[in-house]
């Protein structure tokens, strides 16, 4: 690891404490001039493509889930060449510590981290509490965009299998399925998130056998992750999941389920959690796949 981890006592309880940093830790790194030295790069990943531009953490660089991480033509993630351009152009080398933060309790930050993981970037961390916590603490925000010196990032082939599930994998899946959407989407009353645009699903409901655990249950009021014991109460005690289970999580396009993927994998230490990024916008449009409706 290029940069020492945050020894915050809350994080010490998690399975992989090195995956989180606190706002205090990041403020300290900024103070020490550690950001953008080649060892540490901070990325902001938001739903709104302009939010970064309205003001961001000093030294942070924007990464957009849609424009930078999704392929422009095929419904897929970028390839190794493009990923190398996106990261290298932001001053990120293969050994650089990357801290990602964003809006909406770090949905899009977790999504970016998940894509980085497809490419095996080793040291990626989330800022606990994301953009909202930094702003709420009245820490410095700037519109000044740092000028990054491009570095060489190797062209790495994406390795989807360990953490990404496709429709056929889900059809054949025997382990637990976790539907992280809102209750209305799960039951089939809504074809999209409440307050969100219709994103085109022909059918409502959920994948048969899936359990409904809305992603936001893992987030506290201040956008931070809940404590390990609170998370265990939800996923282990209430839902009966076990860290050795083969779990697939899904939502609408795989963004909210990235948040749950992070929680199960890095905070609770599950061995095998895959994100089904096709999610409801694929399943709810696919011909002759089984669907269940109702809150169950």
């Amino acid at each position: 690891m290029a940069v020492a981890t945050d020894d915050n006592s809350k994080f010490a309880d998690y399975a992989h404490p090195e995956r989180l940093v606190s706002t205090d830790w990041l403020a300290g790194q900024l103070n020490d001039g550690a950001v953008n030295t080649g060892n540490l790069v901070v990325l902001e990943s938001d739903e709104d493509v302009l939010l970064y531009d309205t003001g961001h953490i000093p030294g942070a660089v924007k990464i957009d889930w849609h424009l930078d991480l999704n392929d422009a033509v095929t419904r897929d993630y970028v390839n190794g060449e493009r990923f190398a351009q996106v990261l290298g152009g932001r001053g990120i080398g293969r050994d650089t510590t990357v801290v990602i933060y964003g809006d909406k309790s770090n949905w899009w930050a977790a999504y970016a981290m998940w894509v980085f993981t497809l490419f095996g970037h080793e040291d990626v961390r989330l800022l606990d509490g994301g953009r909202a916590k930094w702003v709420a603490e009245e820490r410095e925000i700037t519109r000044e965009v740092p000028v990054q010196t491009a570095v060489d990032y190797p062209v790495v082939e994406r390795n989807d299998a360990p953490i990404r599930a496709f429709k056929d994998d889900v059809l054949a899946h025997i382990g637990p399925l976790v539907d992280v959407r809102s209750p209305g989407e799960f039951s089939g009353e809504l074809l999209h998130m409440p307050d969100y645009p219709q994103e085109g699903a022909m059918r409502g409901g959920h994948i048969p056998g899936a359990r409904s655990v809305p992603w936001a249950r893992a987030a506290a009021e201040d956008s931070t992750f809940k404590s390990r014991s609170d998370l265990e109460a939800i996923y282990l005690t209430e839902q009966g999941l076990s860290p050795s289970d083969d779990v697939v999580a899904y939502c609408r396009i795989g963004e909210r389920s990235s948040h749950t993927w992070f929680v199960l994998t890095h905070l609770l230490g599950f061995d095998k959690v895959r994100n089904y990024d096709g999610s409801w916008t694929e399943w709810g449009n696919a011909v002759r796949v089984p669907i269940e409706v109702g809150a169950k």
Partner: protein
Amino acid sequence: MRSGCPSRSAPSDQHQVTNDKVTNDKVPLPAALTEIAEDFLALSARDRLTLLLDFSDGLPELPERYVGHAELLERVDECQSPLFLVVEVEPARDAKSSQDATVHLFFQAPQEAPTTRGFAGILYEGLDGLSVAEVLAVPDDAPYRFGLAEAVSPLRLRGMVAMLSRIKRQVRVRSAA
């Protein structure tokens, strides 16, 4: 409000101007929207975002008479973040037809939704003060003529399409009375 944007003075990318969708054979945009579209198309995708942010920053506040009156505003569900809008139609004094009445637009969207605010700002600056007939003549594909698909992705532009269609619907309803 946009005078502070240094990047919009000189067209930097000539071929985009040649491909200018504003001047082709489609239904034309009203003059103010045409000017805004030309400003956007003269810029690189990155600078278009900066200009969109200027529109977001410049979106006027909701007037006092609407504050706290959510029931008077129409919610645009298609936007990524909640946006509310209301249209007023002010009859012209010597008007022979309701088509000559003047349209005024009012929007409310949170600061955390700058893209949505930017779309509203474009429509405000391009349409506010036009006549009913002029607003109703705005082509439904207008949101695609600012070169924003490359800058923010076509997916996100759907919010602006919905805003325009709801504005036109309100104008139709309010000018029919």
